[in-house]
């Protein structure tokens, strides 16, 4: 019983961060139709900005209020300049998806190389609330508990935003059918850019929370993009609640596998991914 509780609580703690990263990619891919392979690079930049701020004496969690708007602006501008251009020149959505992905590949290399030039490839880490508290049968990291609480709070706030604001409704409409939403008077270019911006902001926030708990490196981004891809497939493309729940499910499964055989923790992502594609390709909350 203790083991199951350990796995459950440990999975929830790491799953919170996975949820946040995945909600961002879900917005970009599920709504914006850009499979942003550079999503993890926004996360990495967020982590390094946090590292830089904390080295100047700023509380790392305060970095969220700097990171989120900054990444939103970068993401918004990127979509309006690069991806909107590709979208309007593409003859159909399929061509836009493939060209958008290629552009995102380019973005991935550009961002990573800039980061390597600035910070090199050395791992960085800092100590923030690196102590433990007893939760049930075991001790758990205080910084991870705080990160998970932050991630859940941001997920819930974003869900309320989607459910109860005009902009949120416009995003949901665009997620269901972009063309029809456009015909109904939704400013699609603005809404899609906003989705991309929100996705980047969430990656930036996730970067802050990751830097609080784990070592960071300029090459860390792609690994999180892979995890987010598995989570959004599990949750259902474009489904924000699906990504939110999916993050926790993946967190619990991989923690369980790590208790049994740590060497298979990564293989577990791909096994889940393949099973999902075969059994339920639209995910648990996909339509």
């Amino acid at each position, binding site marked *: 019983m203790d083991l199951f509780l350990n796995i459950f609580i440990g999975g929830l703690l790491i799953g919170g961060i996975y949820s946040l990263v995945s909600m961002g990619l879900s917005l970009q891919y599920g709504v914006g139709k850009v499979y942003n392979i550079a999503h993890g690079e926004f996360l990495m930049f967020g982590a390094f900005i946090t590292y830089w701020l904390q080295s100047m004496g700023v509380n790392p969690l305060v970095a969220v209020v700097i990171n989120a708007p900054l990444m939103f602006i970068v993401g918004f501008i990127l979509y309006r300049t690069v991806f909107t251009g590709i979208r309007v020149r593409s003859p159909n959505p399929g061509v836009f998806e493939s060209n958008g992905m290629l552009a995102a590949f380019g973005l991935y290399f550009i961002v990573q190389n800039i980061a390597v030039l600035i910070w090199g490839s050395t791992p960085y880490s800092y100590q923030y609330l*690196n102590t*433990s508290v007893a939760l049930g049968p075991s*001790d758990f*990291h205080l910084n991870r508990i705080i990160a998970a609480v932050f991630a859940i709070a941001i997920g819930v706030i974003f869900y309320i935003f989607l459910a109860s604001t005009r902009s949120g409704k416009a995003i949901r409409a665009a997620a269901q059918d972009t063309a029809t939403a456009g015909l109904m008077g939704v400013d699609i270019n603005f809404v899609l850019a906003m989705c991309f911006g929100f996705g980047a902001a969430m990656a930036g926030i996730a970067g802050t929370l990751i830097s609080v708990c784990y*070592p960071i490196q300029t090459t860390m981004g792609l690994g999180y993009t892979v995890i987010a891809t598995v989570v959004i497939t599990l949750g259902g493309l474009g489904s924000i609640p699906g990504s939110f729940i999916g993050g926790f499910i993946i967190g619990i499964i991989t923690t369980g596998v790590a208790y049994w055989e740590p060497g298979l923790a990564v293989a577990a992502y791909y096994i889940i991914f393949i099973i999902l594609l075969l059994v339920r390709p639209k995910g648990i909350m996909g339509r």
Partner: protein
Amino acid sequence: MLKKVLKFTVPLALCLILVLASILVAGCGPAGTTATEIVIGATRDITGPQAGFQTYGTAPVYKMWIEEVNAAGGIDVGGKKLKVRLIEYDDASDTSVAVKNIEKLCTQDKVNFLFGPTGTAMLFAVAPIANKYKTLMLGSEGGATTMEPLLANMPYVYSVLNYSNHFQLPVFCDLIAAKGAKTVYICFMNDLHGAEYNLTMQSECGLRGIQVLEAKSIPVTIADMDPIINEAKSLNPDVFCMFAYPNQNILFMQTAMSLNFNPKCVIVGPGCNFGFFNLMFGAALNGVCGEGAWNAKSSPAAAAYAQKIEPLVGGAGNMDWWGSIVYYAEYQYFAQAVTKAGTLDTDAILKVFRTEHFQTVVGDFYWSVQGNGTGGGLLPQACYVGQIGQWQNGIFEVVDNDSHNTASFIYPKAPWPQS
């Protein structure tokens, strides 16, 4: 008629004599007299996951050595000073690209010599290519037990770095056995490096009656060390071994500190040997062991070298207290070997490598040639400045129980400070 024949044959014969004479002169004299420079090639992880080594590994060392050599006019080859030129290609941590790079360096660029690639897996991939083209490769960050039998048939490959059975873990196990350690928990990266350290540790523990409680492999992308630390905590080992790369080792340190896991001895590496570990963990690192090892206290020459290399790697955080000094010693040896051979002919230089000792920054430097004296080379234990380091008050002290020792081995280490 005779005049006509002579009119053509005499100039022809003269030309023939001239050609033959020039061939003879070129063949008999040292090649160094015709070469205008020494070209050394390298395939390195300039980008990619292991790119950090380009900052804190071998690359800054060979770049510094090349600058020094060229500032002094070059290497003396048969009485002529030849400057060294480096051709460096990026393999982005991809072994297939590294293999192509080495092929290009050997066949198109026609380099005289090669510097080793970044890491053991790369070394495995490119060493046979260097050997195929009979191009001498001077080892870098890599080294492996499974490489040893292969070196017997690779006379052009010289591996300079120490590793698990060569001679780090025997030294480490002697240290912990002498202090009465009875149990060990091993966590290792699921790649060649980790697997070799795990197997060697198990074997060395067995020889000394130390029980291995568990050996767990982890992937490079591991995000959560809690399951391993919780299990280790429940088993309460005297010694915890973390044989992984810097990212996973930092995660281990954070997790062990946070979950208050305090074995009597911890060995962590590679990564622990770099200055950034000390900058990250500060006093908490006191008593933590790592592979290596050398420091400024090892000798006056080592102190001077440390002072020289530190600004070039970008400060104390990028100091490598494991391999840096032996890489430099290897290049110093190489320059003297080329001068002694008096030629850039690889086989002539290899003859010198097989027999000669030269003085370097680590003192007397020579090779242990594999394959009964006809294969590639490894560095003998006597040439290393140390095998095991332990952080003590910000210094990566050499704690080997021999003349290399710069401080006593602390066992048990103090518990992690509570934040």
